């Protein structure tokens, strides 16, 4: 979303100010920094409208609290001991643990099965119909059942996140292993390469852009999975905190927790993007981005 907000004015800006004539390079640099400022101003303006609108029209605080109330709630939540059971640190750590474990298990299993399927065409024929069928099952609907099976602890959340992250990684990795240039395999074969060497030297690296596309999706899903799992039944976690604040009609508190969740989500995707840029350093920046968005 933020990406979109930055991109759109980038194309619109030169049209908006056609009269300004500056040399190409300084102009681009200038417009980029002024764009940042402009999008920050846009955010500030929206927040100001929110703040003064809610106060001016005296919107009930349990419906839509003013921004300043959310900031206060955020501050109160963050300004707690890491062990305090009503603070963000305690609940956030639990949610983060669920996200990391679920993401690791789900994408790890997805990638492993993807590799196996790519190496064993018969296995693919065997599992392909089930993958297609299960992929369209709304995994979120299984969350209550998983909680019944595994209880209110962290394990049920890990399983729910794993279910959500498993499929994108499996499907993209299968697609990636299939998309390998036949010439590259011929090259390796002409050198009498073993199957494992063909996999290691060309199939796996060729599939990496696809796999990263799957991992990016999985990262977004993992945050969703954690919150859904905690909504359904949990003792701790940021989802539980949202339920608690809602129960107390503390809408500002709920919004504050959502801000924390968003920060976690953004941090996850940008960390993943950094890893991706390092691993796929050989790809032109725009084409790696294109593959990811595809």
């Amino acid at each position, binding site marked *: 979303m933020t990406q979109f907000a930055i991109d759109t004015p980038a194309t619109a800006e030169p049209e908006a100010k056609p009269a300004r004539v500056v040399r190409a390079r300084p102009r681009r640099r200038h417009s980029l920094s002024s764009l940042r400022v402009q999008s920050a101003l846009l955010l500030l303006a929206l927040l100001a409208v929110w703040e003064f609108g809610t106060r001016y029209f005296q919107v009930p605080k349990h419906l839509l609290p003013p921004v300043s109330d959310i900031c206060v709630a955020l501050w109160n939540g963050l300004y707690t001991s890491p062990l305090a059971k009503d603070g963000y640190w305690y609940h956030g750590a639990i949610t983060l643990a669920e996200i990391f474990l679920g993401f690791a298990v789900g994408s790890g299993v997805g990638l492993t099965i993807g590799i196996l399927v790519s190496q064993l065409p018969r296995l693919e024929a065997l599992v392909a119909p089930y993958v297609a069928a299960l992929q369209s099952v709304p995994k979120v609907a299984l969350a209550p059942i998983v909680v019944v099976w595994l209880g209110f602890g962290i394990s049920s959340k890990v399983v729910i996140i794993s279910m959500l992250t498993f499929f994108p990684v499996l499907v993209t990795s299968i697609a990636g292993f299939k998309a390998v240039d036949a010439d590259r395999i011929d*090259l390796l074969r*002409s050198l*009498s*390469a073993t199957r494992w060497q063909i996999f290691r030297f060309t199939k796996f690296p060729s599939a990496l852009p696809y796999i990263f596309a799957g991992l990016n999706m999985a990262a977004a899903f993992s945050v969703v999975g954690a919150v859904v799992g905690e909504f359904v039944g949990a003792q701790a976690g940021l989802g539980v905190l949202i339920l608690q604040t809602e129960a107390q009609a503390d809408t500002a508190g709920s919004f504050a927790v959502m801000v924390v969740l968003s920060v976690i989500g953004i941090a996850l995707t940008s960390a993943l993007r950094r890893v991706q840029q390092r691993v796929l350093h050989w790809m032109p920046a725009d084409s790696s981005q294109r593959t990811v968005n595809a």
Partner: protein
Amino acid sequence: MSAVLESPKAATPAGRPDYIRVAGLSKRFGEDASGVLALDRIECSIAQGSFVTIVGPSGCGKSTLLRILAGLLDYEEGEVFLDGQPIRGTRRDVGMVFQSSILLPWRSILDNVMLPAQVLGLDLKKARDRAMQLLHMVRLEGFEHKLPSQLSGGMQQRASIARALLHDPKILLMDEPFGALDAMTRERMNLELQRIWMESGKTVVLITHSIPEAVFLGDQVFVMSPRPGTLEQVIRIDLPRPRGMQAMSDAGFASATAAIREHFSHAASFD
């Protein structure tokens, strides 16, 4: 440099005349009745250390023949011998150059040239030295640590030739290696390939669409025709080596290209 280039090349092929022997080779794709006969009873021999070019229109089976020589493709009918041994499956002593360079984009040029050493389990330290010498030979010194995408098409193809030579194969099989290059680069690559071949003494089989290229490079030109793929004629090219661009204006060059064109004058599909 001479360390890279074992067995210097004599002016005429000195090795066994039957180094590669193809006898009654037929290859059919698809089911028996409806299948396409890609190769029909091919008979030929290639002398050790010689440069053979194969020329023919699309669909004449020249790539099929090359893939069989490389062991990438099975065959059911006929015999193919390399150094007296029947070819079944890929071999370690064959180097291949494809139409595109097929450099792995995530590897540096040096690592790409080193690939055969990793696959074949050679001594990596020695292979690295050899790779550097080969890169020097194909005039890519200074580009070892670049990525393939940072090189021009001609440079990429030169790197792929260096890669094909890394494990010191006895035979170099080239499937339209310069087809994707512009005419100027192509001429330069022809001269360089001739030089590399003369310095290395390998047996080279090169497929091309270009009649002048076939005549310029080859000791022998195999002329093939399609549907079914047959070997029509073998033309000896006796122009002295090394051939320079002026060889193209030689009377022998003109008569050889004319003789090959004669073959294709009926086939309108030739490009």
